[in-house]
């Protein structure tokens, strides 16, 4: 029976040592369907490595890494919100990682000390359900300022900044990490119009898809997925600040000498992988990678990567608790 097999495999793993050669354990916050696509290619490119991936949402992943921090079980983190990864307690678990592909990534997408690199990222975007919007007789929102208008009271679904990386990215970008009073006022204006706060960043878009709320504040991947699946959804990238987050990968300290883990990570930074990311991601770091024709049709600007503002991720991670506490005080 299965339980026996699992217990046996655990004992076996212990006998051989957790990170035995040829096997790499990966924790990832990427989506299951994209992981399946990438893994197929990775296994072809690295046939001698046995790759095990556990998929968790970004928040669950961070909590799990922290809970296991005394004795980490994974060799690699693959695609985790960089502001989560730069939490000092998690950053302390990482070892610098180098590789041909990693080291040739654009400087804006990797850490100076080589603790992390981010081949992909996601962009804040609105999922607007045209039918639901028409039912309410509301105009299409175009900018962040529009969302603060009283006309949208109760019509917006938004992720909770204290539980979702997307939610925090939003308030942090709009208020310039809390330093811009006008931005903070705008954030609060939007918060007043929210009809349902969600735990995750993709949930608002899912509510907009089925018409529960006309507007979901989410990210571009989710909006484009909705359009592909055929929902009456329009993606709006609001005028004003472009909110974005990078999905970082890193090597765990205790796997620092695991050459297979390093090779796998280097593959995730390769042009071959970048070509695959294009099928899912709005932000692909590889130089010269432009949104596909389909993505542009769905509303993604062709010059997106070039127009992203510089974001200080270290500071965003550092200021997180204080900004969320302030936001909570002001909104409740």
């Amino acid at each position, binding site marked *: 029976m299965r339980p026996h097999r699992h217990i046996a495999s655990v004992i076996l793993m212990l006998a051989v040592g957790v990170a035995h050669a040829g096997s790499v354990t*990966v924790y990832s916050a990427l989506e299951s*369907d994209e992981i399946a696509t990438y893994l197929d290619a990775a296994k072809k490119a690295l046939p001698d490595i046995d790759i095990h991936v556990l998929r968790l949402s970004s928040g*669950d992943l961070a909590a799990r890494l922290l809970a296991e921090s005394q004795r980490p*079980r994974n060799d690699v983190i693959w695609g985790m919100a960089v502001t989560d990864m730069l939490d000092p307690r998690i950053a302390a678990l990482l070892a610098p990682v180098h590789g041909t592909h990693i080291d040739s990534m654009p400087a804006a997408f990797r850490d100076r000390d080589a603790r992390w690199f981010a081949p992909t990222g996601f962009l804040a975007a609105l999922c607007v359900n045209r039918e639901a919007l028409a039912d309410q007789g509301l105009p299409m929102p175009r900018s962040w300022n529009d969302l603060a208008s009283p006309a949208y009271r109760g019509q917006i679904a938004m992720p909770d900044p*204290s*539980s979702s990386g997307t939610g925090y990215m939003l308030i942090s970008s709009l208020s310039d990490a809390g330093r811009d009073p006008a931005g903070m006022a705008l954030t609060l204006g939007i918060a007043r119009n929210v009809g349902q706060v969600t735990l995750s960043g993709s949930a608002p878009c899912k*509510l907009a*898809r089925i018409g*529960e709320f006309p507007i979901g504040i989410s990210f571009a991947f989710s909006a484009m997925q909705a359009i592909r699946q055929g929902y009456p959804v329009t993606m709006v990238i609001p005028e004003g600040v472009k909110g974005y987050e990078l999905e970082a990968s890193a090597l765990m300290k205790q796997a620092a000498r695991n050459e297979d883990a390093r090779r796998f990570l280097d593959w995730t930074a390769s042009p071959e992988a970048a070509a695959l990311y294009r099928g899912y991601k709005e932000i692909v770091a590889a130089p010269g990678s432009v949104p596909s024709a389909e993505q542009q049709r769905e509303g993604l600007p062709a010059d997106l990567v070039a127009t992203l503002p510089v974001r200080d991720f270290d500071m965003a991670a550092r200021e997180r*608790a204080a900004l969320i506490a302030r936001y909570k005080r002001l909104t409740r």
Partner: protein
Amino acid sequence: MTSARAPALWLLVLPALGLALFFLHPLATVLWRSVTDAQGAFTAGNYLRLFDDPGLPRAALRSLAIGIATTACCVPLGLALAMALHRSRLPGKAFIRGALLLPMLAPSLVLGLGLVCLLGRNGLVHRLTGATTDIYGFWGLLIANTLYGLPQVVIIVSAALARTPARHYDAAASMGATPWRQFLDVTLPRLRFALLAAAFLVFTETLTDFGSAVVVGGNYRVLAMEIYSEVVGQLDFGMGATLGVVLLAPALLSVWLARIARRRQDSGDAMPGRMLLPAKHAWRDAALGALSLVALLPMVAVVATVAYVSVVKLWPYDRTLTLANYTSGMPDGYGPVATSLGMSFLAACAGSVLVFALAAGLRRAPRGVARPMQFLASLPAAVPGMVLGLGYVLAFDRGVLSGWFYGGIAIVAFCSLYHYHAQAFLAMQTGMRQVPDALDDAVAVCGGGTGHVLRDAVMPFVAPAAISTFFYLFMRSMVTLSGVIFLVTPDLGLASVTVMRLDENGFLAQAAAYAMCVVLAGALALGAMRLILHVLKERRHVA
């Protein structure tokens, strides 16, 4: 006078060890975080912050309000359903039983998703009738929590109603008591413990469960959501643990249960005699039938809505029927369903044996043992699954046990068993109270030891409760999510996690389809086990 009167304390050894190792130890590990800072030094800072955060007192009040409202809905409705099952001549009892299984067999996504698709702003009701529906907020939470809590109330109250001898009712009737008087004076007093236990469970569970709060809570934020955002959003385990301690407070109510559990006047009868067959009574049956319908209709409608969502092309815009959602777009495949079945079987087997031993051992235990054990056994109801799961990681990821357990299926089984320990234990204990005192004395007088007492006196009366405990644990383990999310590994996929993942990744129809498969697999497994049980029973009668 004999061995039966002497407390069979040895029965308590294994359950107590299990509780200490798999419940108290992880719980203490995580709660330790509430009084220490990052460097491990002692601090009261987390508790001071409770008063600092303006959202928390309000969230606490709301949790309390929703807990009380849910209890007030669940207990009377649950009582009516249990009465309909055991004290009426209503036709279609199998249907009532089946409908009650639905919320227990369904992954947590189903309840929330079904409510949104049915009663949401753009839900089925709105689309069919044009009425404005909006469930986000207090009422949505109340409905979701009631649907979740109701089956547990029915299980516990049923354990007290099953196997009642007809004598009392015959006597009451011969003295001219009306059926209503009989209900008040004969039925209700026997149900005191069961009703209190059920109310305790529903109340504490509503406080700790965030599954439905997340989906239909709207801007009505409750404590359980605050815990989630502290732990998962802000990685503040200390603050999460502190809020967990706050939620433990209602568990103190279980001390009352211990006190009542020791009063024997509403125990089983000395002479069991003829089993009760409800008399013909049209009005009673009509009233119970109507109440059952009110309680069960939403349950069936919610699950049916999800089933419907799983077979349409693009909910709610293209409702062409299709089976494609069951066959494509599932990166994990159906392997996790098999793993979940195995794990649930393990949890149910271990759980029903441990809980039986615990309840049997406590029957005659002295007060000094009974009170703390009763409290400990009911405490898991007050612990949010996430806090327990976190405790498991912190407690078992190193140390001697880690090699045996970590990453294996056994630890997942134990986590779900102890997460639902209180419910299982209280149902078993309610059943145990139906055992006539005089009967164990009789067995003991005839020279039987504790083993004989259990087999010949206790077991025949407790069998229905024991069986429903087993099935309860099995069903909950199939769909448990909040605790085990911290315990899954790359090679150990679970069905409930797969459903959550599909939904998280934006595949609504596939998530609904997978959830339906889990319901179906659970139902088939239940059916098969019931069949085996039936065959075994028949054999024993023949032999």
